[in-house]
């Protein structure tokens, strides 16, 4: 069962996808904010401490990987109380896997994750 106090920032430029997932997450009791590109995503992430950031890769102005690196910093210690999960339809490159496993808390393929399944995975990531 989702904790109603948990907050999520969804950084996704495709409005259809953003609406679809955000709708289900809100129905499940999460407080969800949205950002449509990398720079506004970073701005919101630094202005408020979110429990989870869902981050697309192919974003305007700055890619999701650049956003991840900027938020986590070179040592990977940035935003220590915020989980960051990449949510994308891009098949993960083997060479980037190690780097992502050190800074991200998950890598999800959207086409294999319906809104209901996303809620399950979010519950899992935020569970203690």
């Amino acid at each position, binding site marked *: 069962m989702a904790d109603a106090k948990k907050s999520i920032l969804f950084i996704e430029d495709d409005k259809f996808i953003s609406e679809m997932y955000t709708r289900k997450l809100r129905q499940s009791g999460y407080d969800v904010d949205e950002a449509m590109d990398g720079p506004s995503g970073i701005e919101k992430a630094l202005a408020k401490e979110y429990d989870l950031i869902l981050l697309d890769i192919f974003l305007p102005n700055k890619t999701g990987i650049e956003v991840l690196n900027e938020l986590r910093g070179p040592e990977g210690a940035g935003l220590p109380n915020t989980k960051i999960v990449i949510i994308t339809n891009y098949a993960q490159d083997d060479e980037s896997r190690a780097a992502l496993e050190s800074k991200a808390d*998950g*890598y999800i393929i959207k086409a294999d994750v319906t809104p209901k399944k996303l809620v399950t995975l979010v519950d899992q990531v935020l*569970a203690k």
Partner: protein
Amino acid sequence: MSNFDKLKRETTALLTISSIVTVLSGLIAGILLALLTQIETVYVVIISFSAALLVSVLYSLYLRKVLNMPYVYLLRAGGGEGSTPQSIDLDSLSYARDITGEIISQIIQLADKINQQNTDQSGQLNVLSSILNSMNFPVFGLNSSGNVVYTNQTGLNIAGKTYEQIKGQEFNLVLPLEKDGQQFVDTWRTDCQKNKITDDTTWQNIKISAGSSRQTYSYDVVGHFERNSSAGVESIIVLIDRTAEHQYDDMKVDFVAVTAHELRTPITILRGYMEAFAEELEPAMNDEQKRFLEKMQVSASQLSDFITNILNVAKVDKGALQLHFEKHPWNKILKTALDDLSLRAEAHGKKLEVNIEESLPEVAVDPISIVEVINNLVDNAIKYSAGSDKIIVKSYMTKNNMIETTVQDFGIGMPTNLVGKLFTKFYRSHRSKQQFGGSGLGLYLSKAIIDAHKGNIWAKSKEGEGSTFGFDLPKYADVADSLASNANMNNNILRGSHGWIKNHSMYRD
């Protein structure tokens, strides 16, 4: 015996037999001719014998040319004579390994002889050095500690250092070579020192960044190990440039990845909103409408799986399919996969009959890819079982102590002589092309996955009666040791068909 030695032996045998047969034929022909004509027997026999011998010699020379025997001539120690090496076809990888091993063996023998003779061999050493420096592939000689004791000019170029800088240094520091996160040269050398007298091996598609621009090159790396070599060179590493060939595969994977991304985006939206319809509108739907929605969901799911298949096939072709092995009870993996597949089967009017032996042992599997194999086999059974609604799935221990899983349908089947081609990429029989859609990729991919699991996949079929597809897997206990050092075993990551998340809780979906 190496492939090269086998080839030489077989061809020599062929030449010898051909010669004997030709000569005998000539003799017999001569004797018959003499009997039938007035000519003196002895003259006819001599002429026939000579003609047969001449034909035999010419035929042998022709056979040698046709077979393109790639003899490589090196300096003969002590003689100073030599011949120019003939061109070597390095396109065949095992052939390249054998030829390279042959060259390296002869170089080592030559170096040994020079050492032992302890005379001024500077002339021969200069020639040897010239030959190695003229080779356009890097050669490194390592001692038993893994330090570089020799390299040619191409080796210095790729390392970007001078000979003084690398001599005596650890090879892994001079030229770090990694595959799957492991420095494989050290692992291989250690294994050879424990278990082998001599060894030849190859690693494919190893990436190296070189040059001032740090461009990435792709090499096949050949290793030759020789215990107790008195020349002090215990192992030799040779790099064969495959950048041009692998670049095409790399570009293909990037193109496929971008295309898959674009195709997956609308699928994401379709699946997401269909789920919303199913949850929120289902109470208002009649049975027929519910079935429509179910079929839409199944089709979207199949399309998503197909895109994943294409991505994986591109990776297989590139040699880059990376699997993550985990210990799992086989019953659980199979039952979970079949639960999902039952819905798909029902949507097509089929029923899955499942018979799984109790207490099957644990296996080491990549859970995502092994489920893809199960999906592919059951999907094929659904597709090709027209006229029958039953599909039987079984899993049991075999006498060889492997866990075998079979999928049997009672559909159209196929001629036995076509079964062997089934696992070829894009292969689809003429009849299946006429009746069904499909890409011919599923079985090709399934075979690659099962091979990587150290299992076997097979098929048998009878036209008009149906087909059975099966694969076996080793028990976890039988492969645990080899997996212990595998860098891909990361137990802190929970992987699924959707991707991965870090193990923040004990819950697994």
